[in-house]
C-alpha cells in the first residue's frame, strides 16, 4: 500500500485511467446495446474487437505503413484503417448474430443456450486467428505470439495541465472515445432508427405492432456494436501497438464488467462504467500493484451492485432520455 505514490502522480494516473476507460467504454457499448434489445450477453464480442485489431494490422501492412510516414499520411492511413476495421468488425458481429443467435431466437430458446453458442463462437474466432490462418496461409503474420503493429503516430506530449503532461495518443483516444459515445447516444435518442431501437428494447411485441421491423433493429444493434468495437480496436492499436489471438477475451470481460457497473442496457452507463473501471484499475495498480487490479475491479462491481442492483445509472435502454 503506497498512497503517496498515487497522490504524487494523481494527474498522470487519471489520464492513463481515462485512456484505458475510453476503450473499455467503446467495447462495453456493444454488450450494452445487444443486452438492452435482446437481453442477451454477447460473449463473443471481445473476439469481435480482436478481429478489429488484426484488421488494423492488415491495413497497415498492406499499405506498407511504418513510423516513417509523415503526419498527413499517417492521419489518412489511420482513418482508413479505422474504416476498414469498423467494417470488418461490424461484419463479424453480423455473421455471429446470423449463425449463432438468430436460429436460436427463432426457436425462442432460453438465453442460457445462446450463451453457450456465444462461447463457441468466441473459441472459433480465437482459434482461427491463433492457429488456422497460419496453416492456411503459411508465412502470414498470424500466430499465437503477440504481434507488434507499427507505430505510425509517434507519441509526444500534446500539452500539459498543471505539470501533468498529456500525450497526443492519450488525447486522441479519450476525445475520440468519448465523442463516439456521445454521437451514438444522440443517434439512439434522437434519430428515427434510434427510436426503433428504444421501442424494441422497451417492448418488442408492441414495437412490431407499431410497424417497427424488429429484425432490422437487431441487425442495426449488432452493426453499431461492431463499429464501436472496430473503433475501439483502432484506438487500442494507437495506444498499445499490438495484436494477439486471445487479446479479446480479457478486454471483453472487462468491458462487460464496465457495462454492468454502469447499468447494462444503458449507453451512458457504458461510458460511466468504462471510465470508472479504467480509473479504478490504474489507481489500484498505483497503490498496490497490477497483479491485484482484477480483484479490485470485481470487488468494486460487487459493492456497487449491492447498493444499486441495476448499476450506477440503472439499466433500461428503453427509458434512457435525451
Amino acid at each position, binding site marked *: 500500500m503506497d498512497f503517496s505514490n498515487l497522490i504524487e502522480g494523481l494527474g498522470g494516473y487519471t489520464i492513463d485511467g481515462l485512456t484505458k476507460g475510453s476503450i473499455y467504454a467503446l467495447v462495453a457499448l456493444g454488450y450494452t446495446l445487444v443486452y438492452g434489445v435482446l437481453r442477451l450477453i454477447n460473449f463473443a464480442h471481445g473476439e469481435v474487437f480482436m478481429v478489429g485489431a488484426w484488421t488494423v494490422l492488415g491495413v497497415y501492412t498492406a499499405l506498407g505503413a511504418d513510423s516513417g510516414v509523415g503526419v498527413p499520411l499517417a492521419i489518412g492511413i489511420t482513418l482508413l484503417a479505422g474504416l476498414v476495421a469498423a467494417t470488418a468488425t461490424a461484419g463479424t458481429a453480423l455473421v455471429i448474430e446470423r449463425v449463432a443467435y438468430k436460429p436460436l431466437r427463432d426457436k425462442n430458446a432460453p438465453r*442460457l443456450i445462446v450463451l453457450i453458442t456465444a*462461447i463457441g463462437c468466441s473459441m472459433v474466432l480465437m*482459434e482461427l486467428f491463433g492457429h488456422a490462418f497460419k496453416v492456411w496461409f503459411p508465412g502470414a503474420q498470424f500466430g499465437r505470439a503477440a504481434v507488434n503493429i507499427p507505430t505510425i503516430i509517434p507519441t509526444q506530449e500534446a500539452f500539459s495541465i498543471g505539470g501533468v503532461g498529456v500525450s497526443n495518443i492519450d488525447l486522441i483516444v479519450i476525445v475520440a472515445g468519448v465523442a463516439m459515445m456521445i454521437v451514438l447516444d444522440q443517434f439512439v435518442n434522437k434519430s428515427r432508427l434510434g427510436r426503433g431501437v428504444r421501442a424494441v428494447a422497451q417492448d418488442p411485441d408492441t414495437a412490431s405492432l407499431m410497424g417497427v421491423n424488429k429484425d432490422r433493429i437487431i441487425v442495426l444493434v449488432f452493426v453499431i456494436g461492431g463499429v464501436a468495437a472496430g473503433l475501439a480496436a483502432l484506438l487500442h492499436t494507437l495506444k498499445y501497438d499490438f495484436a494477439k489471438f486471445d487479446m479479446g477475451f480479457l478486454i471483453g470481460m472487462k468491458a462487460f464488467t464496465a457495462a454492468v457497473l454502469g447499468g447494462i442496457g444503458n449507453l451512458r452507463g457504458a461510458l460511466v462504467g468504462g471510465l470508472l473501471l479504467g480509473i479504478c484499475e490504474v489507481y489500484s495498480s498505483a497503490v498496490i500493484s497490477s497483479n491485484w487490479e482484477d480483484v479490485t475491479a470485481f470487488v468494486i462491481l460487487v459493492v456497487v451492485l449491492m447498493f444499486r442492483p441495476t448499476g450506477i445509472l440503472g439499466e433500461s435502454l428503453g427509458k434512457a432520455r435525451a
Partner: protein
Amino acid sequence: MTDNTKTLETVREWTLGLPGKISAGPRWVRVLLLVVGLAFCVYLPFLDVLPFAYIRTDLGEGGSDWASTLFTITLYMIIAAGLNVVIGWAGLLDLGYVGFYAVGAYSLALFGSPNSPVTQAIAAQFGLPTGWAMAFAACVPLALCLALISGVALGTPTLRLRGDYLAIVTMGFGEIIRIVMRNSSWTNGASGITKVPEPPAPDKDFFSTMLPERWYWLALAVLVLVIWLLRRLENSRVGRSWLAIREDEDAAAVMGVNGFKFKLWAFAIGAALGAIAGLLFATKQASVEPNLFQLNLSFLFVAMVVIGGSGNIWGALFGAFLITYLPERFREFEAWRPLAFGLALVVIMVLRPQGLFPNRRRARELEDRKHEAEEAAADA
C-alpha cells in the same frame, strides 16, 4: 425412410427412454441392471476386446493413459452433476464454478500437505514436529465446510441479483479465488503446493501413480454416491421447490416457497460437490497451482451441463463425458481440437437447443416456447 425412421425411433426409445423404463420395471430388474452397469464401469479400464477397445484413448501414438482419462471423465462428471443442481435445477447461472473446485483442491493442499505454509505455521505455533500435516480424513469435512461457507458468503449478497448480474458476479468470484491464491504467500503464490496427501488406504502403495485404475474406482465410488444423493434430493421437497422457482419465482413465492432460501441451498450444495471434485483432483494430481483453475474451465463446466441437457442429471453426466473424452480420444488432431470444440458447441446448440438428453419437463417447456414463437411469427 419410414423403416429407417422406425428403427431410429426404437433405438431412441431404448436409449433415451431407458431410465424411465427401468424405473417402471420390477425391482429385481432394476437391481440387476444397476449391478451389471456398475460392474461394467468397474471393468472399463481393462476393456481390451477389439471392436469395443476402439474407445480407449491410448491406442494411437502419443495417446494418454486410458484409466487416467477415465478418472478425469468421472471427476468432471461429479462437477457436472454439482453444477446441474445450480444451473439445471435452480436455474441460476454460475460462471465461477471453478472457484469452488479450487477451494476444495486448496483446502486439502493447504491443510494436508507438510509443504504448505499453513501447516508449517500451525506446526510452528503449537510446537508440533516438522512435517506435521492434518490427516486426509480431517481435510474432507474441512474442505466441505470451507466450500459451504464460500458458497453462502458468495450467495447471500448476490442471489438477490437478477440472472445476468449473478453470472458476472460469480465469474468475478472465480477469478478472485484464483488471483488471491496466485498472489498470496500463504498459498505459496504461483508455484503452488506439492505433496498433497493421498487418501487413507490399507497399505502405503495402494493409491500409487502406477495403478491409475484405483484412482478411477475411487472417483467412480464418489460419483455413484453423489448420483444417489442427488436423485433423492431431486424428488424431495427441496427439489420440487427448485422446480417451482425456476419456472416462475413469483408464483412460487405466492405458494409459500421462499425463493432466496432454496436458491442458497442450491448454491451451497453445488459448492460442496465442486469442492469434493477439487479435493479428488488435488489428491490424484499430488500438487496444486493457481494456473489449474483458470476462468475458461468455468465455461467448460457450464457447456457440459447445457450440452447434455440442463436439468437432467444423466444429460449433464453425458455432456461431461463428451467434453472430456472426445478431445482426449482425438489427440491426433492436436491444435485443431479447440476449433472443432467451438464449432461443435455452436452446431449442437443450434440444432438441439434442449441439449442432447433434455429433462423431459424442460423439453416440453421448450417445445411450447417454440410454438409460441411460431404463432407470434404467424400473427405478425
